[in-house]
C-alpha cells in the first residue's frame, strides 16, 4: 500500500482545528512525524474537550462508580445496573445544548436520537426517554420559540420511534436566555447475557458500517485553511444535522435482532466525531487495531473526502464488528429492515487505526493514542466573585406577605412550578404499555412485563442552588432525585448525569464544576447510588456569562413489587397528613423569593444534612413497603404549601392543615428546606405509622386531614398552642388547579 503523498501542513492549521502548539508537538512525538491533514483532523476531534474530557476527567474521578448492582460503570456507551432475575437496566444522559440553540427542533430531535443509540448499542431495548430542559424567561419571544421548538423536536423524534417520553423537568431563568440546555436521558431493558460492548476484538473480524449513508453533516470548524476545504465546501456543510427517526426505528430493530443472532462481537453508535471516535474507541478498548477502506463507506453525496467521511456526524449510523464468516447473515437481517450494511474493513493486531482509500493509505495512527493519550489539564480554579454579593440576603428586608393566598396562586402559576402538561401532552408517554405512573407525579414508573417489578425514573437539578452554592446544590440534585424515587416506592439504584457549565478556562467556572462534582459524589456515596456514566457540556454562556451551573442528575430506582408503588395524590377523605423532616427558615434561592420578591437566586440555598436525608428516605420507603402510606410527595420548589396544593390537585380533593407558627409564616409555607416528604395514611394505620417513625428516629409532624374541596391552612401561635388558629390560606382546589394547569399554555399562546 502506498502512503498518500501529503503536502506539508500549513503552520497554524492545528490552531484552527482547536489544538495548541504543545498538543500538536505531542502528536508529532507520538507519530514520529508530522501528521497529515486527515490525521490532524482526527486527532483534533478526539482530543477535543467533548471527546477527551481533558479538563473534566481529573474531577470526574471523584465520583463513586462501584456498587453491588453495577454491571457496567462509566466508559461504555451506557451504564448498566442489575435489577434481578437476570435482567438489567441500561441508561445514559447526554446534552444537545448548542445544536438546540441554533435549530431547536432538529437539535433536540437529534439529541434524543443519539441517546437512544447509546442505549440500544448495548443490546438493550429502550423503554423510556426523559428530558431535562432549561430556558430563559417565557416572557421573551425568543424563549418561546426555543421552548416550543425543543419540545416538538423531542416529541417528533421520540414519538416516531415509539419509545415513551415519561418524564423530565423544565426550568426557566434569565441565565439561560441565549444558551438553553437540552439534556436527554434514555433507559433500556436488557437480559444480562445480551450485553454488548463497544469492542473490536478478534483479529480478522470484519468491520461493518450500518444504517444511514454518510453525508457532510456537522463537520465542525468551517474555516480550515487547507486545499481540501475551500469556501465552497464549507457552504455545502450544514451546521445542523437533520434527524430521521424512521431510519432510527429500523436501525433499532435491526441492531437488536442482529445482536440476538449472536453474530456481533462489538458495536458502537457513531455519535460525536462519527466514524473516527467509534473506530478508534472500539479498537482501543480491545487493544487491537482497525483498518478501513473509506472508499467502501456508503455516502449521500459524491466527492466526499476521507476527511469529511471520518468527521461527518451524520445521524443514525453504527459501526459493528462481527464474527468472521457471519457477514451474510448480518447483511440479511439489515436488508430485511431495508437498511444497508457494508463491510468496510477488519480488525488488525497492530493497534493502528489505518485508513485507506482503495490502495492508498490516507491515515495511520495508534488507536490508543487517540483515546488514552489525550492531554489532561488541571485547570486553575477559584471561588468566583459574584458569590459574596449573591449570597447576601437579610430577611429583615423581605417583608412577609399579607395575602398568602395570592402568593400561593402566583407560585402555582409560575412556570417553574406550574403543570408541565403542555410539555408532556406532546410526548407519547404511554406507547409500550408499561407506563404505570405517568408524568405529573414525582417519579415516573414503568412496569417490567412478565414480572412484578417496576422501574422508577427521575431527573433533577435545582441550578439556582448550584449557582449560590455548587457544593450544596450538587448534593441536593442527587438527594432530590432519590427522594422522588422513594416517593414512588422505589429503592434508588444508580445515577447518570449531565454536567452543564460555562467556560472551564475561567477559574470561577472550574471552581463551580469541582464543587458540584464533590457535592454530588458525597451524596452518591451516602445514598449508595453510584455514577454509571454521564456527559459534560462546557462553554454554555449567555453574553459572556456562564449559565447557572447545572449538574443534572438522572436516577434509576427499582420497585420489587408494583403492588407497593406509591403516588403523590391525596386519596380519601379522612386520611391523615404527616410531614417527615423539618422546615427551617431557608428562603435563599427559593422560587418564592424570585416570584414574589423579585429576588432571583439570592441568599444561601437550603442546607442538606445527608444523614438526615438518608434517614428520611429510608423510613418513608420502608413505611411505603409496609403498606402504611397512601400517598407521598417530596417538598421542593415552592415549599410545603405548593407540595400540599399539588397533592390536592392531583387527588382532586382538599385538605385541612394546622401548623404551629414556630418560624416566620412565609418560611413555614414557602421555605425550600430539604429532606421533607408529605405523606398520608389511613385513620386505621396512623398509630402504627407514628410508632414506626418515632422508632426510626426521624423528625415528623402531624399536619392535618384530607377532605373537602378546599386547601385550608391555619397557623397556631407558637407561644400558646391553645390559641385560635389563624387561617392563612383557604382556596378551592379547582381554582388552584386551573391556574396551575393553564399557566404555561397561556404563556405559549
Amino acid at each position, binding site marked *: 500500500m502506498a502512503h498518500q503523498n501529503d503536502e506539508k501542513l500549513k503552520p497554524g492549521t492545528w490552531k484552527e482545528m482547536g489544538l495548541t502548539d504543545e498538543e500538536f508537538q505531542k502528536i508529532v512525538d507520538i507519530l514520529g512525524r508530522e501528521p497529515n491533514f486527515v490525521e490532524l483532523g482526527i486527532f483534533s476531534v478526539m482530543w477535543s474537550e467533548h471527546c477527551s474530557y481533558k479538563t473534566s476527567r481529573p474531577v470526574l474521578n471523584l465520583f463513586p462508580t462501584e456498587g453491588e448492582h453495577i454491571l457496567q460503570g462509566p466508559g461504555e456507551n451506557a451504564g448498566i445496573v442489575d435489577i434481578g432475575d437476570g435482567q438489567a437496566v441500561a441508561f445514559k444522559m447526554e446534552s444537545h445544548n448548542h445544536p438546540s440553540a441554533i435549530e431547536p427542533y432538529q437539535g433536540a430531535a437529534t439529541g434524543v436520537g443519539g441517546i437512544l443509540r447509546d442505549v440500544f448499542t448495548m443490546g438493550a431495548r429502550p423503554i423510556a426517554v426523559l428530558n431535562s430542559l432549561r430556558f430563559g424567561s417565557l416572557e421573551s419571544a425568543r424563549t418561546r420559540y426555543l421552548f416550543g421548538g425543543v419540545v*416538538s423536536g423531542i*416529541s417528533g423524534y421520540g414519538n416516531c420511534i*415509539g419509545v415513551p417520553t415519561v418524564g423530565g423537568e423544565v426550568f426557566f431563568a434569565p441565565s439561560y436566555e441565549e444558551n438553553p440546555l437540552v439534556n436527554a436521558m434514555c433507559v433500556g431493558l436488557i437480559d444480562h447475557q445480551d450485553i454488548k460492548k463497544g469492542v473490536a476484538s478478534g483479529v480478522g473480524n470484519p468491520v461493518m458500517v450500518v444504517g444511514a449513508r454518510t453525508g457532510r453533516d456537522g463537520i465542525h470548524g468551517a474555516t480550515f485553511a487547507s486545499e481540501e476545504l475551500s469556501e465552497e465546501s464549507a457552504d455545502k456543510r450544514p451546521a445542523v444535522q437533520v434527524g430521521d427517526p424512521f431510519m432510527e*426505528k429500523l436501525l433499532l430493530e435491526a441492531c437488536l435482532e442482529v445482536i440476538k443472532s449472536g453474530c456481533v462481537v462489538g458495536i458502537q453508535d457513531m455519535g460525536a466525531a462519527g466514524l473516527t471516535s467509534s473506530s478508534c474507541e472500539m479498537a482501543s478498548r480491545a487493544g487491537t487495531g482497525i483498518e478501513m477502506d473509506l472508499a467502501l463507506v456508503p455516502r449521500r453525496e459524491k466527492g466526499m473526502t476521507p476527511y469529511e467521511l471520518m468527521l461527518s456526524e451524520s445521524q443514525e449510523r453504527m459501526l459493528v464488528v462481527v464474527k468472521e464468516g457471519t457477514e451474510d447473515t448480518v447483511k440479511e437481517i439489515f436488508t430485511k429492515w431495508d437498511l444497508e450494511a457494508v463491510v468496510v474493513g477488519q480488525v488488525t493486531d497492530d493497534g493502528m487505526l489505518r485508513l485507506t482509500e482503495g490502495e492508498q493509505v490516507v491515515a495511520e495512527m495508534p488507536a490508543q493514542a487517540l483515546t488514552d493519550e489525550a492531554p489532561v489539564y488541571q485547570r486553575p480554579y477559584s471561588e468566583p466573585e459574584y458569590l459574596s454579593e449573591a449570597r447576601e440576603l437579610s430577611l429583615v428586608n423581605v417583608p412577609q406577605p399579607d395575602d398568602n393566598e395570592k402568593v400561593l396562586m402566583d407560585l402555582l402559576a409560575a412556570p417553574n412550578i406550574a403543570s408541565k402538561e403542555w410539555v408532556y401532552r*406532546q410526548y407519547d408517554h*404511554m*406507547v409500550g*404499555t408499561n407506563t404505570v405512573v405517568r408524568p405529573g407525579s414525582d417519579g415516573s414508573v414503568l412496569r417490567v*412485563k412478565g414480572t412484578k417489578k417496576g422501574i422508577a425514573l427521575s431527573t433533577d437539578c435545582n441550578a439556582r442552588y448550584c449557582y449560590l452554592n455548587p457544593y450544596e446544590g450538587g448534593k441536593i440534585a442527587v438527594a432530590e432525585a432519590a427522594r422522588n424515587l422513594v416517593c414512588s416506592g422505589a429503592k434508588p439504584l444508580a445515577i447518570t448525569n449531565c454536567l452543564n457549565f460555562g467556560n472551564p478556562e475561567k477559574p470561577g467556572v472550574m471552581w463551580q464544576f469541582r464543587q458540584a462534582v464533590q457535592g454530588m459524589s458525597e451524596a452518591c456515596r451516602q445514598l449508595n447510588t453510584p455514577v454509571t456514566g454521564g456527559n459534560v457540556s462546557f462553554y454554555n454562556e449567555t453574553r459572556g456569562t456562564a449559565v447557572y451551573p447545572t449538574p443534572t442528575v438522572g436516577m434509576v430506582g427499582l420497585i420489587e413489587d*408494583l403492588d407497593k408503588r406509591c403516588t403523590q395524590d391525596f386519596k380519601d377523605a379522612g386520611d391523615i397528613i404527616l410531614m417527615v423532616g423539618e422546615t427551617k427558615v431557608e428562603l435563599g434561592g427559593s422560587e418564592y423569593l424570585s416570584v414574589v420578591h423579585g429576588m432571583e437566586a439570592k441568599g444561601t440555598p437550603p442546607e442538606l444534612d445527608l444523614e438526615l436525608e438518608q434517614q428520611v428516605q429510608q423510613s418513608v420507603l420502608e413505611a411505603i413497603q409496609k403498606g402504611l402510606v397512601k400517598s407521598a410527595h417530596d417538598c421542593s420548589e415552592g415549599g410545603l404549601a405548593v407540595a400540599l396544593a399539588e397533592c390536592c390537585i392531583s387527588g382532586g380533593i382538599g385538605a385541612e392543615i394546622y401548623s404551629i407558627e414556630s418560624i416566620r409564616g412565609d418560611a413555614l409555607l414557602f421555605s425550600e428546606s430539604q429532606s421533607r416528604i408529605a405523606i398520608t395514611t389511613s385513620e386505621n394505620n396512623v398509630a402504627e405509622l407514628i410508632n414506626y417513625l418515632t422508632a426510626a428516629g426521624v423528625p415528623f409532624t402531624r399536619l392535618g386531614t384530607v377532605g373537602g374541596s378546599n386547601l385550608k391552612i391555619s397557623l397556631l401561635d407558637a407561644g400558646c398552642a391553645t390559641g385560635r388558629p389563624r387561617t392563612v390560606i383557604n382556596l378551592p382546589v379547582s381554582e388552584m388547579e386551573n391556574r396551575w394547569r393553564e399557566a404555561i399554555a397561556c404563556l405559549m399562546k
Partner: protein
Amino acid sequence: MKFGVVVFPGSNCDADCFHAVQAATNEPVEYIWHKTDNLEGFDCIILPGGFSYGDYLRVGAIARFSPVMDAVINFAKGGGLVLGICNGFQVLLEAGLLPGAMRRNDNLQFICEDTFLKVENNGTPFTALCQENQVLKVPVAHGDGNYYCGEETLKELQQNNQVVFRYSDSTGEVTPKTNPNGSIDSIAGICNKEGNVLGMMPHPERCAEELLGNADGEIMFKSILATWQRRVR
C-alpha cells in the same frame, strides 16, 4: 380464533396490540410482516399505531402500498374483521377501505392524553359487548387525527350508523370542548357500511389492563372474540 397484527416498517404499537389481545382474549396472535401477501388462517387483522414509513409525505400514504395491503383489502372485502388503530386507521383511509382523510390536529401539536369516547354504535363486531351510549375512557396519541370528509360522505356516515365513536366528556356529552383535535362531527372512529372494518384514532390496547390504571379498552377485544364465536356457531 386467530388474530394477526400487521408490522409495517415504523409500526410501534404492534407489540402493544399483540400483548393486549392476548391479555384480553387469551386467543392466539401472530405478527404479519408487511411483505406478506397471504392472510390465510386469520380471523381478525389489526393494523396497529405508529409511524409507518415515518409517516413521511402523508400519514399512512406509503404503507398503503405495502404488499400486505392488497391482501388486507381482499380480506376485508370477503367480510373479514379489520381493526385499524391510530396509524392503522390512517392507512385504512389511504387504502380506501374507509372514507375520508386525516389532517394535522387543529392545534398543530401532537396530543397524548386520555379521552372519553361515546359508543354511538354498539352493533359492530368491535363494540358488540358495549352498552348503548356507553362511555369508554381511552387515550389518544397522535399528531394527525383531525378527521375530515365531505358533506355527502358525512351524511352517509351518519345515516348508516357508521360513526362508531365520538369524543365526549365522561358523561357522554359531545361538545366542541371535548373534541381534542378538530375532527369533523367529533368523530373518533368509523366503520364501513358492512361493519367489518373499523378505524379509530384512540388506543384501546393502551387501556386493557388494571395495572395501567384503566381497562376500558378490553371490551373491544372481547367484543371481537364474542362476535367471532357467534359467527362460527
